[in-house]
Each structure stands twice: as C-alpha cells, then as structure tokens.
C-alpha cells in the first residue's frame, strides 16, 4: 500500500460499481488487494460499458463473418471489402447519458468518439449519420434537448469536414428522460492498410498524442479526490468537452503517420481513456505495457495516477511505433500542433505496469483488465404486461372517415415530417461525394476513383420492438435492407447500437435476448454480417425504461454509381406500381399512435423469404434501368409513401392519381397500415409490362395503382366496384405541412 492511498473499504468498492464477487475476483487475479488506482482501472474496464458483461453471451450468437468481411467485431470498428483494393470501415455508438445532461457537448463528443474509432483503423471518415430519439416537442425541455443535440452534432461534424449525410429521428415521450443519440460513421481505407489496436513487438515505444489529459470524465472520482488528494479542485462535470479543431488535426496527423511505415498499432482513448487503450492493445498482442505517467501531457498540475488513468479527456490517441521511428512520429505530431510524448514501451510479461515519479503505482495483468472481466447470464423472462401490449381490439377503433385529415396529421407528426430543419444545419456536401442527400430512403456517397457508390441507412422502429422484441429486430433488419435496396444498393454489412434499459431486470434482459435472436435470424437469412457494435444499457429513469431500441446502421454497395435510385417521382405520366402485398397491419403503426393515441397491437407480419424476393426484384429493376423512383413503405403506410414520393424531391412537387384495392381490409389499413416488404415505384409507361413480368418472375406481387399526374395527390379506394375518393390534396399544401411542421413545433413559444 502506497502512502496517501486510502483503505479499500466496502463503500469504496460499491462506489466503483463493483460487486463483492467481482472484488474477490480482482483479489484472486492479483493475489493481493488492489490499490485505489488499480481498483479504478478494474472498475472502468469491468463496467458494463467496456466489458459487455451482460450482453456478451448473447452477442456471440450474431453472424459476423462473410466473404467481404475484412474485420469483424473486437476492433475499433468493422471493415468490409468493396473491391478495387478498398474497404469501408464503419461503426455506430451511443452517447445517450451525456447528451441528456449536457446536450451540446454530449452529442458533440459522441461524434468525436465515433470518428476516432474510424480513423484509428486507417480509414478517412467520409460520412456520418445520426439516429436520435427525443420526447414529444410539446415539452420545452425536449425542444431544448433536441436543439442542443442537433447543434452539437453540427458543431463537431461540420468543423471536421465529414459530411452528415443522413439519419432518422423519432419522437416519443418514453424518451423524455432518456433521449438517445446514436452516431454512425463510415470511412474508406485501403484493404491492405488497415491498422489495428495491437501492442506487438517487445521494446517498441508507446507514444501518447493529441490533447492534454485533464480531469474531465472521471467516473466515480468524486470520493477519490476528496480522500486521496485534498489539493485537488472540485470535481469537474462528468460530461467531456469536445474540441473538433484538435480532432481534425488528430485525424490528419494519424493519416499522415499511417502513410509512412512507422506504426505497429494504434488505438483511440475513448471510454476508460489511457487504461483501456493500453490494456486492450497489450492484451490483443499477448504482451504487456509499461507506462510512465510523469511524462503524460496534462492540463493541470496535481493530477493523481488514478485521475490520469481514468480521465476521458477527448481527442487523445495511443500508438505503438516501430522501434527507432519515435522521432519521425513526434515530428509529424508537432507539425499538426499536437501534444506528443513517448510514455512507455511494450513488455513481454503481459503486465500493464504504471509508474509515476519512478514508483510503480499499478501493476495488473493486461488481459485480466481487457478480457477476463465478469460474464453474466442474467435471468430473463417476458414481462406480465406483454400480453396487454399486443392485445388491441380493432373493433373499438373506428375506420378512417376523413382520409385527408388523417394524412395531414401523419405528415405533420414530427416522426414523419421532413427533417430539413435538422439536416440543413449539417454540412452534408463537404468532400463532394454526396450523390443522394438527406431525405431519401438511404444516403449515397460515391467512391472517387471507382465507378462505385456506398449507400447507408440507420433504422429501428422501437415501438415494434416494444410490442415484440424478436419481430421488431427482424423488422428493423428488413427495413434497413429495403431502404438500401430502394437506392439501388446491395446490403454488405451491418453495425448495431443496442439501446436498452436495466439488464438486471429480467423483462429488459428478455427484450435484449429476443432482439438479438431476431437480428440473428434476419441477418443470417439475408447473409448480412454484423461487423461492429455497441451496447447501451441502463437507459432508465425513475424505474421507467426506454422502448427497446436496437438501432441498426446498414451499408450497401452500388457497383455502378450511375444506377443510383431516389425515392421521389420524376415525371408526369409515369406509372405508379406498388410491389408487395398489403395486409391488415395496423398494430404498432404510426397511424394508430397519432390518430388513435394507442401504442398497441402486434407489429406487422414479416416473411423473410418475401422480403428477400422483393430485394432481388427491386435491385434487378434498378440495375436494368427500368425505374424512375423507388420508395420503401414504412411509417404511415402506402399513403405516406405516395405523398413523400410526390413532394420529397428538391425540385417541383408532382401529383399522382392512385386507386388502391380494399378487398377485405379496413380502409385505414389499406391507406396507413404498415405491411412490410412493400415498395412504391414509378416508371416510364413503356416499361410497365416488363416490370410486372419481372415481379412475377421473382414471386413478388405487383399492382399498377395509378400514374404521376397533375399537382394533386388523389387516392381512391376501390371496394367491389365502388370507388371512394379518400384523399385529394394539392401536393404543394401537403409539402408545406410536411416540410415546415418540425420547425414550427420547435419554435413554439
């Protein structure tokens, strides 16, 4: 025990969020009691966030391999081959808790963290997407959170020069006290120049570079600093502060370092900072690392080893250089005005040894910290309330009377309304690759120097996941894939960001386990590998948990960028066709929520075979140049999909005249039901028969429902020869409601 170190008491252990058994395991590993610094290191590395202790047994069921996979889970990000010697490196991460406490910095540092994960791998980030969840905007607090988060994303991403090309936002009061901020980033790298977080080569120097280390983001450090160093200032807020300018310098410095033959391994200092980057790199290589904290660049004097090892100051990196290349590395870092110091070396003994002023202050097996954390098979069971959620008595819900009013209500609901107010604050064009901008089913960026383009989407309908987590997760995979397919891209890989409540509750753990099963089944069926991911548990306040939100970020490849498709109608006179079949799928729909104020029922039926047939059909139609537009039917059903096809293009809105067949269905199900595996397409009349023939070859139902025409959206429902005109609206007035309602909601007094 070192002088000045407090005794490790039961209270101290509990304050570090470690259980008695976990503490005993630490003693068994060390063969002694840990000191406070070591306790802190174990507590962060064995936290749910870093160790995946509740989720790991489930996550390992997910399919992670495939012929294109260059790097699966376990590294800073996943990588998938796109040919031409290139691969895309991508991952999605959450920054939910900090964004609730301090929306601007919470969201900004979320962007910063995921960007580092990507360029650490040797990839230049070329696209960002965001998935956000807020409570409804009638509450001033929710408006404040949303404005802050959007400004934070803009502030960081714009400065970095990485375009924010897409995303999605859903509003539901369940997220009022737990907003979600999930950020997806994709980068481009040479397949043979991927960098990994490994500390190989005993004797190689370990170099710290980036910002200085400060006292921000130290978890549980309050009590420690009081008892441990009474000189220390008051604890800083636990939310880190981002500096996108330094991150931009870090990005350019990293890519310049990587262009030369200098590095063995590199990792960013994210959660658990210096502790995680050093022990994970050492553990992956089966080596140890010796760190000298005396030379770590610091923002202020008097920092303890505990604080330095646990600091989550942003914009910092750790690299292992080839021996003898130190000076060259340092020179590049200095060119970019970054702090840099050789802080240690790789050792053979497998120990993460930390020295300060010549004394050993921590000595822990690297593997014990990084990989030997606890694993839990937490009990799970469906909650008692589950049946109540799925039981929806449709007889008690009157069928739609005023189709115009219902459509307008849906188009104005912030979840469906245009997100223009948001994406105009993001630079979505920088790097001059964005060929499909925000506002279509998927965002598309071209890959310069090739004929290719990459499409990206982020998706999850968490209401479906609440009503049936297994089905909800399958539906999320299907919808993400469908969005890509509608842009002409074949899905090639997936990253996930799994947002759930408290895993110690069996009902939450059941939601989690079921969602993983659903993702697994759908991904295996479509052969889409999951190459990276992130789990965010404890999204719960006052015992109220968020809806299970397994957010997916899916990436697709367009071999010929000229064959990229968009969702909006192009020309008067084109035929409008609905591919796929419509069932009575009102359960969990946006329509039932916004018009009838219920979030109940069973989520829509999904046949993975039918979905896959649809994907094959749409891709082949786009490939052969037969389509003018393709738009996925999702929230709001075919009526909203038609309206969006009319008005979401950047040019003049186009009208359409459409007749839908009622059959035995309710009228509202025909218009607003959310039956899956459906796409609204438009095409030149000359291709009409070829498209119908192609659909039937793929076994996909296809029905010509009308034509692009005029400046009104007119939808009739045919019921045994009787034709009822249920929607008839000028598209410009629909567009006005849809395009500006979000702004109006945000600017209400």
């Amino acid at each position, binding site marked *: 025990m070192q002088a000045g170190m407090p005794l490790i008491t039961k209270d101290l252990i509990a304050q570090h969020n470690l259980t008695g058994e976990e503490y005993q395991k630490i003693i068994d590993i060390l063969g002694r009691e840990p000191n406070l610094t070591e306790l802190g290191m174990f507590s962060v590395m064995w936290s749910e966030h870093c160790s995946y202790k509740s989720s790991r047994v489930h996550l390992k069921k997910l399919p992670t391999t495939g012929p294109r996979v260059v790097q699966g889970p376990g590294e800073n990000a996943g990588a998938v081959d796109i040919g031409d010697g290139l691969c895309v490196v991508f991952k999605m991460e959450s920054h939910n808790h900090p964004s609730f406490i301090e929306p601007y910095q919470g969201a900004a540092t979320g962007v910063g963290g995921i960007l580092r994960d990507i360029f650490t791998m040797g990839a230049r980030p070329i696209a960002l997407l965001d998935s956000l969840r807020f409570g409804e905007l009638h509450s001033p607090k929710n408006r404040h959170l949303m404005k802050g988060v959007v400004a934070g994303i803009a502030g960081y991403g*714009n400065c970095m020069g990485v375009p924010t090309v897409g995303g999605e936002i859903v509003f539901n009061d369940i997220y009022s006290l737990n907003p979600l901020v999930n950020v997806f980033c994709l980068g481009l790298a040479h397949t043979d120049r991927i960098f990994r977080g490994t500390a190989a080569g005993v004797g190689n120097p370990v170099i710290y570079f980036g910002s200085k280390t400060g006292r921000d983001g130290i978890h549980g450090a309050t009590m420690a600093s009081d008892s441990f160093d009474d000189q220390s200032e008051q604890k800083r807020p636990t939310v880190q502060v981002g500096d996108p300018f330094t991150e931009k310098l870090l990005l350019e410095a990293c890519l310049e370092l990587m262009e030369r033959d200098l590095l063995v391994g590199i990792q960013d200092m994210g959660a658990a900072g210096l502790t995680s980057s050093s022990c994970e790199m050492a553990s992956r290589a089966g080596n140890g690392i010796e760190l000298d904290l005396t030379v770590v660049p610091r923002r202020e004097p008097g920092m303890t080893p505990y604080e330095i090892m646990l600091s989550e100051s942003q914009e910092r990196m750790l690299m292992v250089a080839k021996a003898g290349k130190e000076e060259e590395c340092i020179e590049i870092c200095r060119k970019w005005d970054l702090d840099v110091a050789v802080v240690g070396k790789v050792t053979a003994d497998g120990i993460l040894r930390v020295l300060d002023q010549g004394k050993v202050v921590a000595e822990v097996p690297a593997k014990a910290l990084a990989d030997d954390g606890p694993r839990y098979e937490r009990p799970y069971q469906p909650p008692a309330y589950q049946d109540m959620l799925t039981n929806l008595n449709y007889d008690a819900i009157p069928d739609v009377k005023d189709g115009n009013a219902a459509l307008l209500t849906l188009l104005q609901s912030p979840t469906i309304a245009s997100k223009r107010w948001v994406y*105009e604050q993001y630079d979505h064009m920088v790097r001059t690759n964005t060929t499909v901008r925000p506002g279509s089913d998927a965002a598309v960026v071209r890959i310069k120097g090739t004929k290719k383009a990459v499409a990206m989407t982020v998706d999850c309908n968490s209401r479906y996941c609440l009503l049936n987590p297994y089905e909800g997760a399958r539906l999320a995979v299907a919808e993400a894939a469908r969005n890509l397919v509608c842009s002409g891209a074949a899905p090639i890989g997936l990253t996930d960001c799994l947002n759930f409540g408290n895993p110690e509750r069996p009902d939450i753990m059941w939601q989690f386990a079921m969602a993983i099963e659903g993702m697994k089944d759908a991904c295996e069926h479509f052969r889409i590998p999951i190459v990276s991911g992130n789990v965010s548990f404890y999204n719960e306040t006052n015992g109220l948990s968020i809806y299970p939100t397994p957010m997916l970020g899916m990436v697709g490849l367009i071999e010929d960028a000229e064959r990229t498709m968009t969702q909006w109608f192009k020309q008067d006179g084109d035929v409008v066709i609905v591919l796929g079949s419509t069932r009575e799928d009102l359960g969990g729909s946006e329509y039932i929520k916004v018009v009838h104020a219920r979030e109940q029922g069973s989520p829509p039926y999904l046949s993975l075979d039918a979905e896959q047939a649809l994907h094959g059909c749409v891709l082949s139609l786009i490939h052969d140049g037969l389509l003018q537009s393709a738009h996925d039917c999702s929230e709001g059903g075919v009526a909203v999909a038609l309206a969006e096809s009319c008005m979401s293009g950047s040019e003049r809105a186009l009208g359409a005249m459409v007749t839908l067949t009622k059959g035995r269905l309710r009228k509202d199900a025909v218009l607003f039901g959310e039956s899956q595996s459906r796409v609204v397409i438009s095409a030149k009349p000359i291709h009409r028969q070829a498209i119908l023939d192609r659909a039937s070859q793929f076994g996909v139902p296809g029905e010509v429902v009308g034509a692009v025409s005029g400046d009104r959206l007119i939808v009739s429902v045919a019921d045994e020869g009787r034709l009822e005109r249920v929607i008839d609206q000028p598209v410009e007035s629909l567009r006005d409601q849809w395009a500006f309602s979000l702004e109006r909601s945000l600017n209400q007094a």
Partner: protein
Amino acid sequence: MNIGVVVFPGSNCDHDCRHVFHDVLGQDVTMIWHKETSLAGLDAVILPGGFSFGDYLRTGAIARFSPVMQAVKRYAAEGGMVLGICNGFQILLEAGLLPGAMLRNKSLHFICRETYVKVENAATPFTSACRSGQVLKIPIAHADGNYYTDPVTLAGLQANAQVVFRYCTADGHVIPEACPNGSLDNIAGIRNAEGNVLGMMPHPERCAEAMLGNEDGRLVLASMVEGLKNAKRSEAVV
C-alpha cells in the same frame, strides 16, 4: 496551369478544391502548407473552405496570421489571382485583402443548402464564362456568411462593380427573401478594386460534376482556368 491550394490547420475543403482542379478540370495542383512563405511558380492561389484554427475567436481571425498570408498579400499585390471560398473569403476579409466583415447568419444556425446567385459582373477573370445576369445554383455551407460593411465602402463596391455575386431567387430576383444569411445587399461574393482577388461564400467546387447533380460551379472555376490560359498566351505573344 499550376493552382496552389493553401492548407491551414482546420481547412476541410482543400481536398475538394484539389479534386475539382486536378481531376475535373485537368490542371496541376500544389498543396501549400500554411507555414510556407513563397508562392513562386503558381498561376493562381485558392484559400479553401473549412474551419481554419477551428474558427475559434472569429472566423479567419487566426488564419490571417499564418506565414503564408504574407506571401498571399504579396502575390495579390503583384496581380496574382486569388480565390477565397467560404472560410477562404472570411480569411481574405480578416487579412484586409477584401473590405468588410462577416457576421453570424441571421438565423444563428449553420446553413447547408442550395442557393441561387446572380452574376452581377461577368467581366471578371472568375466569371468570364458566365453571362451578365446569369443565375447559378451553388450551395452554401456556413454559420458566418452574413456580409457586412459600412455604407461608404458598400457604395464603393457597388460603384466599382466589385459585387460579383448576389443571392437571388431561382428566376433571378435579388430580394431579401432570397438571401439565406442576412447578407448586406444580398452579397454572396465580392472582388477587390484591381479585380484579381475574389471572395465568395457559395462553394463552386461542390457543383462542378454531373454526378453531383449540378455543374453550375464549374463555370466559375473554368473561367479562372481559361483566363489564366489566355493571359499566358498573350504573354507568349508579347
């Protein structure tokens, strides 16, 4: 032609400018680190967009002190062509190479979207391929593009035909509603009195290829390249 693209720490449209001049317009491009002190051998200099020095303190306020800016001033004084786009325009203002200053956008938000600009002066080396009064669709992406200057300077700019681009509607009406950021007199781009330095907030390099759905920006950049070629030819003749 050899086009120099200055790279400040925090520049982020430097690669886009290199791409458009090199890959689209077929010119040589030299990247100029901000600590360089000579611009010898360059036919034109681009100050690209981005967030030089994080735009901390004020946009362009720190970049004007970079060593390269002394060289840019000499280069401009000797008649060299200088184009500042977005942050590059802001730096030209801070460096005193162009008059005026940038305020925060009227909405106080960063704005990224298409705008229409009217070519008010087609007799400049940056607009010679355009018609006078032609409407170009060129996107903006900035938080501080609200151009401001004093009335005397503004009158001088107007009198000398130094206002090169004004924000307008799609059919060319210069009205306040067409101004995205509150800019004085709808100003989107101005030149110096000598005519060899242009600053503009819209990004022509973002709309110079069919693949990106708009080629209007190419007119501006191609004007530059053609003007330089003609100048070289007449030099050769003399």
